[in-house]
């Protein structure tokens, strides 16, 4: 029993990181109205921003969160200008291909600038274990979960209690109606895209801290997991995307518990397929047209 409990804790922690990536992804898809393939690279760049901040200014988590958020948010502006701004009224596949190209560009640039080797992200959080035997939390797991919960809470306040947040929701729901209400759709979408990317960046930092290493190619699988979690949540529904991420983390870890770690992705994608067959709109209640 202890063993299963410890695997559930591992799953919750991994699921929280997926959740944060998925929240960022859903914000981007919501406000831009298009699926993106650059999120993996945004996550990777956030991790590198935190790495260099820790190198320069010491291991301060708050500064790390700010640095990774801001760096990825700036990359978000670049992505918006290159991939979306000119193509709002163009066929969807144009921006889609554009995001794939930008993702390759960012990944290869990162390999040239940061080098192809793994980099260590050690001792940002000390190795402490709270619990008995196999069951318990490590300090880094607690910090990951706490960071994800606090950022989700801040995002909730932003979306529901601020003018900009309400504008973002309006743009996310219907761009034409929002424009008719006097909202600057382009600027709001730019802001939303940057916030989504910034959250992805923080998720990248947490990934690097949790796995104690980062590399220019880390974005590929991370972006895929963000996409899957977001699809589970119905693509644009933020709380459901978070639930999707958590479920994915849990399913993967419980799958490994009963079989082998080699089947991690099989469990994740079979779960995704099953959910989509039973509930094609994902966990979200919204049954309208997908973007």
């Amino acid at each position, binding site marked *: 029993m202890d*063993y299963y409990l410890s695997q559930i804790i591992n799953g919750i922690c991994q699921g929280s990181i997926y959740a944060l990536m998925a929240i960022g992804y859903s914000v981007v898809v919501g406000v831009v109205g298009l699926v993106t393939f650059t999120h993996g690279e945004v996550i990777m760049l956030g991790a590198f921003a935190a790495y260099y901040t820790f190198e320069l200014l010491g291991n301060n988590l708050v500064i790390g969160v700010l640095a990774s958020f801001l760096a990825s948010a700036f990359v978000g502006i670049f992505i918006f200008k290159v991939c979306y701004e000119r193509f709002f009224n163009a066929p969807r596949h144009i921006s889609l291909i554009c995001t794939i190209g930008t993702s390759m560009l960012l990944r290869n640039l990162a390999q040239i600038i940061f080098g192809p080797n793994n980099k*260590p992200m050690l001792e940002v959080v000390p190795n402490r*274990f709270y619990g008995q035997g196999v069951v*318990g939390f490590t300090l880094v797991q607690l910090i990951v979960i706490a960071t994800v919960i606090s950022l989700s809470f801040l995002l909730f306040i932003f979306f529901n209690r601020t003018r900009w947040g309400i504008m973002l929701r309006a743009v996310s729901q219907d761009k034409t109606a929002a424009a008719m209400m006097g909202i600057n759709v382009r600027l709001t979408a730019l802001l939303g895209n940057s916030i989504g990317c910034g959250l992805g960046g923080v998720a990248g930092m947490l990934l690097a801290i949790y796995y104690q290493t980062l590399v220019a190619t880390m974005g590929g*699988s991370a972006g895929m997991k963000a996409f899957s979690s977001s699809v589970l949540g119905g693509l644009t529904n933020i709380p459901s995307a978070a639930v999707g991420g958590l479920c994915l983390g849990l399913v993967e870890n419980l799958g490994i518990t009963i079989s082998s770690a080699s089947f991690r992705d099989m469990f994740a994608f079979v779960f995704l397929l099953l959910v989509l067959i039973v509930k094609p709109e994902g966990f979200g209640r919204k049954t309208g047209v997908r973007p």
Partner: protein
Amino acid sequence: MKKKLIGLALICVIFALAASPAFAAPKTYRIGVMAPITGTNAEYGKGFQIAMKMAADEINAKGEIKLELIIKDSKGDPKESADIARQFADDPSIMAILGDFTSSCCMAAAPIVDEAGIVLLSPTASNPDYASMSKYAFSIMGRQDGEAPFFATYLLKKYAGAKNVGLIWVNSDWGKSAHDNLVIQAKKEGLNIVADVNYLPDEKDFSSAIAKLRREKPDHIVIMDQGLVPNIINQIAQAGWTDVRITTLGPGTSEQILNLSKKNAEGLLLTTPFFIDADNKPAKAWADRFAQIAGFFPTVHPACAYDTVYLIAAAIRNSGDKVTRESIRENLQNLKGFVGLTGPIQFNPAGDIFRKYLIVAVENGKFVRKTDYEYAK
């Protein structure tokens, strides 16, 4: 008239000299190289690139023959390796191929070189099935049915005194072969394998696999991988699991382990066929030159890569005037008396070699040799 005759004679002499072998420019041979320059095994790919270039520069400086290396990045991906092997095989100016790093990549390329009739000489592939896939496939790393049994008998049982062992291994051609050979020998030695978990090559999260191992309370664990060994060591430390001795089969004395795992790697035990320390003067001088260029110290892998270039050069020289892809294969297979940086190399009929191994530990952030080659006697 006399002047004209002298002029004519001079021209004849110049032509005759130019045509003589002493004045002929050395012939250039193009050699294809495939290595994981980027990706998880980038450290090893970069090592290949630098070591092979060092060897080619030395051979070219001597002037007898000239080697031109065409280096391509296989990213550690067997699909890429197969594509690159095809490109090299289709280019008639490429005389032989060096690489790749992993057994999986080499095994993906082996059928292609077999069909095209071009040598594929891998510095590091150690899956026992690789070299026998084709008469054109060669490797000088030594085979997993040599290293894994040594690991079980001498490192785990004799040196570390292990009783209950947990295994965690990468589910690849190399990993499967290392695992299977280790398990066979461990059973013969009476070692108790209490947990056995595997994962795919691009895995990042080992927390579940580690929890699985930990539940069975092994006194030693064996990590069988190369590039991901530091990640697993770090995640074991992060889980607060301290009452276990970590050993690893595969990475050699990789600088990445020291850089990425720092004090988490303290006490780590591993095996290597070749170790560079102050006693081994030629190897130390070579390693210093390598470190100057690369910025990190070499493991056995770049040393083997360095030797492969000299092996190909020797096979070309032994081919005489008519160098073909086939003559290189024949002369490589029948090469005798070759002593490289990593020791004497003579291929067995399958196209690979058996090596002797050393036990190395991480102490105070450095690799320290704990046994000599005679330990296995």
